[in-house]
């Protein structure tokens, strides 16, 4: 179709521009777009816009980016100045001195096989103590502890799903197998076969306070998040200080250091000050309401020092309690005490909705979390 060639070239170039802006546009999508434009009027700008939007956009949050590139490509309008929405996260270079999530290298070299050997060595070198608070550890001790933690996986509890699978005993008859067997016994159902409901792990959601001193504790939970998501459970990870940031994507790297590095870059606010209530509220509105936390175990790691309005925190915790299965709160100030009384206003406000309160200030308490988690049915 020689007369169509210029239109095709145009659309291919447009597809390239979209790709550069961060939209995942494949060749197949461009082809579909060409086919779509062929059924419409290529000279009509509105038709072009909608044809492209229907075929090359797959998510709602890609729409503003598409609009911007379309305007630039077809209408020649320059981009709006800084602050334009892009899909590539803006790496705000905070002054490195304040970069609180600095991670000393956990893995030595490339080989992970040496881990076990080096684990033993390191452990004896630095006398790893399970009950030493993270805040008091030196970077080498922290690295050693993290190597140990890399071996532990958080296992969320299981729940019954609505799917069934064949099983030796169960409450539902397996009609298909029964009928097949019945044919052998001339219509007399001699043996009944059963099905049982399958179990599935609940999703796990980590909401970590990384402001000020909390980052010491939170980054260790990030280690857990990384190893748990590698174990193919559904894990979502969020960080907050004054704002909530979703860092699940950043953690999808094989090497944990890379993953934590990416996470550190994705979080933008290092200014200190904590707004727990507003952040949890943002979570509830942005994700909780959409069902991300439905049936999930939510683990919040924070000391409860909230600078925001306590009423907001109370409301958010109440909603979160209804939208999720269980809420676990890790408060390092709890330490080893068993009769901890919440002393900060934030903790007092949040307390009625917390199902399990742990400390998370040392390795032993994290191991406790790993042990208690599967029990939260």
């Amino acid at each position, binding site marked *: 179709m020689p007369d169509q060639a210029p239109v095709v070239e145009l659309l291919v170039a447009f597809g390239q521009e979209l790709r550069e802006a961060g939209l*995942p546009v*494949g060749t*197949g*999508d461009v082809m*579909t777009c060409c*086919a*779509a434009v062929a*059924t*419409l009027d290529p000279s009509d700008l*509105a*038709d072009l816009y*909608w*044809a492209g*939007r*229907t*075929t090359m*956009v*797959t*998510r*709602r949050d890609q*729409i503003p980016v598409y609009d911007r590139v379309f305007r630039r490509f077809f209408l020649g309008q320059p981009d709006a100045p800084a602050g334009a929405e892009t899909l590539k996260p803006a790496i705000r270079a905070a002054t490195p001195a304040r970069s609180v999530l600095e991670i000393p290298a956990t893995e030595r070299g490339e080989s992970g096989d040496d881990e076990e050997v080096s684990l033993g060595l390191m452990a004896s070198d630095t006398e790893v103590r399970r009950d030493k608070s993270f805040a008091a550890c030196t970077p080498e001790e922290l690295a050693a502890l993290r190597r140990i933690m890399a071996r532990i996986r958080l296992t969320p509890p299981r729940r019954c*799903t*609505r*799917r069934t699978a064949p099983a030796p005993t169960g409450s539902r008859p397996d*009609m*298909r197998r*029964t*009928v097949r067997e*019945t*044919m052998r016994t*001339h*219509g*007399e*159902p001699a043996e009944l076969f059963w099905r049982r409901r399958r179990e599935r792990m609940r999703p796990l959601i980590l909401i970590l306070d990384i402001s000020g001193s909390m980052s010491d504790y939170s980054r260790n939970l990030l280690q857990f998040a990384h190893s748990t998501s590698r174990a193919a459970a559904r894990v979502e990870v969020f960080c907050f200080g004054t704002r909530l940031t979703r860092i699940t994507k950043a953690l999808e790297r094989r090497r944990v250091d890379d993953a934590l590095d990416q996470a550190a870059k994705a979080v933008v606010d290092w200014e200190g000050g904590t707004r727990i209530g507003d952040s949890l509220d943002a979570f509830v509105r942005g994700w909780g*309401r*959409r*069902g*991300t936390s439905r049936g999930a175990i939510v683990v919040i790691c924070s000391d409860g020092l909230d600078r925001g309005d306590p009423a907001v925190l109370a*409301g958010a915790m109440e*909603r979160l309690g209804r939208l999720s299965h269980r809420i676990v709160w890790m408060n390092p100030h709890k330490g080893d005490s068993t009769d901890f009384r919440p002393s900060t206003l934030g903790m007092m406000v949040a307390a009625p909705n917390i199902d399990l309160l742990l400390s998370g200030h040392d390795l032993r308490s994290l191991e406790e979390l790993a042990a208690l988690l599967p029990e939260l049915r």
Partner: protein
Amino acid sequence: MSEGRPDHPATVGELTDLLRGHGYLADRGMSTALFVALSLGRPILLEGEVGVGKTEVAKALAAVFERRLIRLQCYEGIDTNQALYEWDYARQMLQIRALSERQLDDEDAVDKLFGPKFLLERPLLEAVRAGDRAVLLIDEIDRADDEFEAFLLELLSDFQITIPEVGTVAAATRPLVVLTSNRTRELHDALKRRCLYHWVGYPSPEREVEIVLVRTPGVAEGLARKIVAAVNRLRQLDLAKPPGVAETLDWVATLQVLGEDDLDERSAADTLGAVVKERDDLELVHEHLEEIVSGA
């Protein structure tokens, strides 16, 4: 274009008019997306807020093209038995029983047991058989799980189903497939790529007034405008469940039934349940009721 059914429309404008004739007001984007879907024979995924007319458009399309509407309502745990086909086990067992009692030595007996008489066809198989005589609506696909999505992807690619005991059923022509999602879950990319994508947002106020006038005949335009303005203010209020177009229409119908011809604080307070459906939201709305209802 067969058996006297309406022709495929030639332009986007024609499709918009056809839909309007059946009471569905589609904006330019929606019409274009549907037109492309019809022309290319691709499924279309409509994502958007609750109550904006995603399901309605499938019904309207079925009416416009005089096709059968086959609806598959998805839920968590839906599997091939509910979506595709199932054997009528009870009947099969009775048949076996009957055959064995009469001691029939019939070679074909077992084959007949897996014949059409004992096959319960579910929506997807019906759609494959119906081909372009049907509009297949897969409603709320976000409520189904990953396994179902994978299975659906395969179906949407080939449009043929293999039933082990019977054989392969292939669609001679493809039905129009409309998938809807309320975005409670992120769908798998592979499924999204298979379909055309359209985000359905809230209509503009003028458009919403039009919709109200078309859908609820007998309502005064002034009242319609007031209600649409109030609903738009509600949407700005950051409620847990913002009202959709369906709620607007419900509100209008409620006021009509009660014989109210004006929207003031009293009538609004009485009928708020039609448009605000959550306890926390109700409290918030009552606080701001005056400014919501005031003005146009």
